[in-house]
């Protein structure tokens, strides 16, 4: 064993490290045709689709799951090609509070390290995890606005909902960009009723949703196939069950085979499991059977009792809170409106009084007093500026998202309930 730190022999290594400073001249003919649009930095494109690599999705899912229910975020890396944003990798950003500088340093360092191993090093946005879908918050919009500050920046924000994914058994991942209308208003900072109505900004068009596609490399495809059809699975079982098509039916079958063959050994081994290691590890072999290994799309729990009712309760609570906020906002606005009307009324009365007084003076043959100018009037009767409507707008947006989510989840829930009924009738 010899570890000699002073001996720096490798040329490729130094070449790699110096890659920043000495870029070789680019041979345009060597660039694949589909990448040519990337080089044209002056063109203006709008992103129409988002393609996310399986790896990036898994990283996002892992990060959100481990910190659930805290909301976490991270960076997306990839490339924009001809209106399609390809997200190929992602990394987590620490949740501990740190200074702005710290965070930036972290991201810059991470991107540099990843570039050394040939990962796409350009940031194409960020991701955030959410719970039950009320992600329309001021900070999110501000961060996204800073991403989209420069024109033609293709950045998106991916929203992953862990709770919804687990409940419905269907991946909940959405991609958003801020609409041009919102950006325009945010620049001026005027979120008044007049401006909102004039520009046509409503809760529905603050964010623009982009369709997401999942992409996987050929090697990843092979891996996915193998995960679905483990070769080590007991051959007999394979033949007799022929083609269990559900994602993990094979694995379950394998677990069972293992269990019946070496039941005692497995038990002993799993007994050694440390509970603190992870809540995810089943502590007893039978847990494999009690826990559905295929996705939860058919989970009856949501249809009848237990977790389903709990999630419904949580959703209703969240909706209730939002409605309260909404009423509060409305009251505040009404209060302001009444104040404004009162002020305007007093101002009108004053002008009328002045006019009447002047008319009387003229009738008496005296000189009329000069009419008060608009400026003077403004100074005398101060109308408070309208409170920003943005909060109310976002609140409405969240309420809309939540209620929409609930409505959408009720369909499958009803279907599951009637399925449970059918099953019950058949077995009774």
């Amino acid at each position, binding site marked *: *064993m010899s570890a000699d730190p002073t001996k720096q022999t490798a040329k490729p290594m130094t070449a790699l490290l110096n890659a920043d400073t000495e870029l070789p001249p680019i041979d345009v003919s060597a660039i694949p045709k589909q990448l040519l649009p990337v080089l044209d930095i002056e063109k203006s494109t709008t992103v129409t689709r988002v393609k996310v690599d399986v790896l990036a*999705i898994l990283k996002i899912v892992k990060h959100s799951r481990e910190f659930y229910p805290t909301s976490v975020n991270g960076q997306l890396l990839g490339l924009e090609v001809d209106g399609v944003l390809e997200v190929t990798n992602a990394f987590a950003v620490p949740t501990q509070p740190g200074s702005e500088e710290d965070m930036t340093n972290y991201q810059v360092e991470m991107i540099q390290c990843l570039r050394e191993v040939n990962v796409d090093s350009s940031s194409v946005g960020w991701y955030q995890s959410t719970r039950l879908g009320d992600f329309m918050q001021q900070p999110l919009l501000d961060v996204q606005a800073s991403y989209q500050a420069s024109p033609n920046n293709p950045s998106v924000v991916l929203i992953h909902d862990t709770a919804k994914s687990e409940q419905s058994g269907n991946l909940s991942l959405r991609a958003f960009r801020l609409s041009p209308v919102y950006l325009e208003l945010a620049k001026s900072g005027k979120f008044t009723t007049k401006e909102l*109505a004039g520009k046509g900004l409503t*809760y529905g068009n603050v964010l623009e949703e982009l369709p997401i*596609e999942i992409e996987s490399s050929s090697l990843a495809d092979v891996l996915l196939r193998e995960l679905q059809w483990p070769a080590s699975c007991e051959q007999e079982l394979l033949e007799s069950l022929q083609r269990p098509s*559900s994602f993990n039916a094979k694995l379950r079958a394998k677990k069972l085979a293992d269990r019946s063959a070496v039941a005692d050994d497995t038990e002993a081994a799993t007994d050694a499991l440390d509970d603190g290691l992870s809540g995810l590890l089943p502590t007893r072999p039978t847990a494999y059977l009690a826990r559905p290994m295929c996705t939860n799309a058919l989970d009856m729990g949501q249809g009848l009792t237990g977790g389903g009712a709990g999630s*419904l309760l949580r959703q209703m609570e969240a909706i209730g809170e939002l409605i309260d906020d909404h009423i509060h906002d409305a009251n505040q606005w009404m209060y302001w409106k009444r104040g404004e009307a009162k002020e305007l009324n007093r101002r009108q009365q004053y002008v009328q009084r002045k006019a009447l007084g002047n008319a009387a003076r003229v009738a008496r043959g005296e000189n009329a007093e000069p009419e008060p100018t608009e400026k003077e009037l403004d100074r005398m009767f101060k109308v408070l500026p309208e409170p920003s409507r943005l909060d109310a707008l976002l609140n409405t947006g969240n309420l809309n998202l939540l*209620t929409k989510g609930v409505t959408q989840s009720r369909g499958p829930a009803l279907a599951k309930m009637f399925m449970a009924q059918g099953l*019950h009738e058949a077995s009774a």
Partner: protein
Amino acid sequence: MSTLNLNLPTLASSLVKSGATTTATTTAQQCYIHPVVLFSILDHFLRRNDNQERVIGTLLGVRSDDGRVIEIRNCFSVLHFETEDEVELDIKHHRAMFALHKRASAREQIVGWYATGSSLSKYAALIQDFYSREAAPFSAVHLVVDTDMSDGQLGIKCLQGSPVGAGAHPENCLFLPLPYELQYPDAELTALQAAADTTESGEGFSALVSDMEQLEKSIAELHGMLERVTTYVQNVCTGRSKANNVVGKYLMDMLAVVPTIDTEQFSRLFQTHLQDVLMVAYLTNLTRAQLNIADRLQRIV
């Protein structure tokens, strides 16, 4: 120290007692792997440099207190360079990446390393020695993914090093297989399911489906499975095919999972929940209608 040079020692130098001794005492017995690790390795392999045959990287994860159970949760790539008689690891990069990962996820420690390729690299023992010291006082795990697919599959092997010989030499190392299992938390399963649909579409990509479509697919799958099982059971009953005990036990376990609820209780539960669901749906729709009206009114103002 930016690079670490590990030389295959000559006979003479190996006779000299080398300073580094393997300190790992506790060996692992079971290993759980998260799917994200495998996908990261494949991605790293696809992004390797020209003329590079294999890639290696560091595995991160958590251990049980006694170090017998390991859960590999994450990994990152490490730059390395191989020649005829030398292998070089970019230690600086490794340390930097670990420090960065540590900040985002404090619980994850170094548990071992991965490499791609159909066989063990000839420097595997040396690298294993390095990682054993990184992972001390526990032993390091070595994950091999056969990206050449020499057996027609991605043979994923989980190994752990064990010192051989009287004197502890880092270059003497026996790799013993370690039983491993893949972990599928619910959230990851949904992602994998969505990705599996991608491979089935055959186009290399696919759009996400709505909950209802997903449910429809699941029901169709369930239906298909039930039909296959019915056919199989009937065939066994009529004596047309041989009974299989494993399948029989499996089916029995499955049937035992179906809960038996009293009919009256069931209908009561069903009715109340149905009413709840319909009520919630009605209220949420009402709220949305209100929002819409408010929105339209605002435009008139």
